[in-house]
């Protein structure tokens, strides 16, 4: 119920229209990875998915920002069923990607932002290595590049009220890691796939 309302609200507010450029919506195991410019990104990408896929897709959200007790935490847990990831390397114990791997093993698709933090620009910065590790551990998962347009203008870093621009969500052609590809080459190729959608 809350999920549907939330998705509807996001769509009215910022459009969040999904354009399936390089693939079609499908219930296969997928890791959607996108450029990150705004707090709305997670919600926009998730709202652009068809409702049945939304139920089986878990956005990965920063624990320090989204897992609080207030309204943000409520939206993250009840609204879009977030999976929390610990960004601070000094405090965490064990493998930070473990919850993600477990979710993939359960057959849940993921939404991740491999830049690790929001950037105030149209094109993505270099990726952190999480995407590489997941691609190596789960060679069967489809890595779907997603370009989020205009959200950095709608609600840039440091602001709290979204401007209702028309934002689009473009889904590209899924890619997989080549067997002998190095980490840097893979991450750059994955990043380039998003740039190509821009």
């Amino acid at each position, binding site marked *: 119920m809350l999920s549907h309302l939330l998705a509807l609200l996001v769509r009215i507010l910022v459009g969040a229209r999904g354009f399936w450029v390089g693939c079609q919506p499908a219930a296969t195991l997928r890791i959607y990875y996108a450029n990150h410019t705004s707090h709305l990104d997670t919600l926009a990408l998730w709202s652009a998915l068809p409702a049945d896929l939304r139920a089986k897709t878990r956005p990965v959200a920063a624990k320090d920002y989204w897992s609080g007790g207030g309204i943000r935490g409520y939206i993250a847990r009840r609204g879009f069923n977030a999976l929390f990831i610990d960004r601070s390397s000094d405090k965490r114990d064990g493998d930070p990607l473990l919850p993600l791997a477990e979710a993939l093993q359960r057959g849940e698709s993921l939404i991740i932002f491999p830049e690790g933090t929001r950037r105030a620009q149209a094109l993505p910065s270099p990726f952190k290595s999480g995407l590489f590790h997941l691609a190596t551990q789960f060679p069967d998962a489809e890595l779907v590049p997603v370009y989020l347009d205009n959200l950095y203008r709608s609600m840039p870093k440091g*602001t709290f009220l979204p*401007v209702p*621009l028309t934002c689009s969500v473009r889904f590209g052609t899924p890619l997989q890691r080549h067997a002998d590809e190095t980490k840097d080459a893979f991450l750059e190729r994955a990043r380039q796939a998003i740039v190509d959608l821009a």
Partner: protein
Amino acid sequence: MNPQEKFYWLMGGVAVLLAVASLVGWLLQRGAAHRGGSGVIDNLNARIRAWWVMVAVIAACFLLGKTATVVLFAIASGFALREFVTLTPTRPGDHLPLVVCFYILLPVQYWLISDGWYNLFAIFLPVYGFLLLPVLTAVSGDTELFLERVTKLQWGVMITVYCISYAPALLLVDVPGYSGQNLLLMIYLLLVVQISDVLQYVFGKLFGKRKIAPHVSPSKTVEGFIGGGLSAVGIGTALWWVTPFTPLQACGMAAVIVIAGFLGGLALSAVKRSLGAKDWGSMIEGHGGMLDRLDSVSFAAPVFFHLTRYFFEL
């Protein structure tokens, strides 16, 4: 005739017109299907379908009354402003003025109409909005392309909020012997503007040869403007009974509406090109965006409003 009867006759006429258009579209579609289909005819049919929806929305507003009409136009303005700003490059420093435009200036402008506060309605955006927006942008501290950014936002607000709000503002005009019928005057304006747009498009497609401004709007032709414009003035004259005007006055008013609407379409096409787009958006199938439908209204409404107010109000 009382206003209610006028309304039903008017809407009945529009419905018949649309039914004929749908029938013609369907026949053309069938003819084109034998020859493998046609993009122009598909687009025509999409436009006709969208017209049914738009007419239904306008009719519903009339039946629901003044507040619903003002709210409808506020929403339409919001969509138009959204399209304008989406195509206009903005920087993070524009966020505050943008928020103010969408969440404060726009609602206040329409609230002033429903409140009947004409004097403030007329100067709120051109004076106070005009002065406020550069201040808000300056407060954000980003001076890169400052004047360009402020100007574009002011321009967008003036067209999509201020000028479009003149259509529902017709509710504020007090013409002796016409009280309680102002919604009909607004529908008259919309009808003449839109029929003029449609007929100019149709005449242009059928007979268009000489382009008026090939670089700005390749679909505007001399033949389309004259044929479509004159027909629209004819229809506007024939509808004099809806308005407080005599047939001759209605003819003059319709001519003003048609010319202002044409110029509006032309000017906004140029703006659109300079922003690098063909359509303002994609929300109305076949037509493009909200602003593609309201570009001519944004120019015709203020002119029609002031002429009516100046010559027909006591």
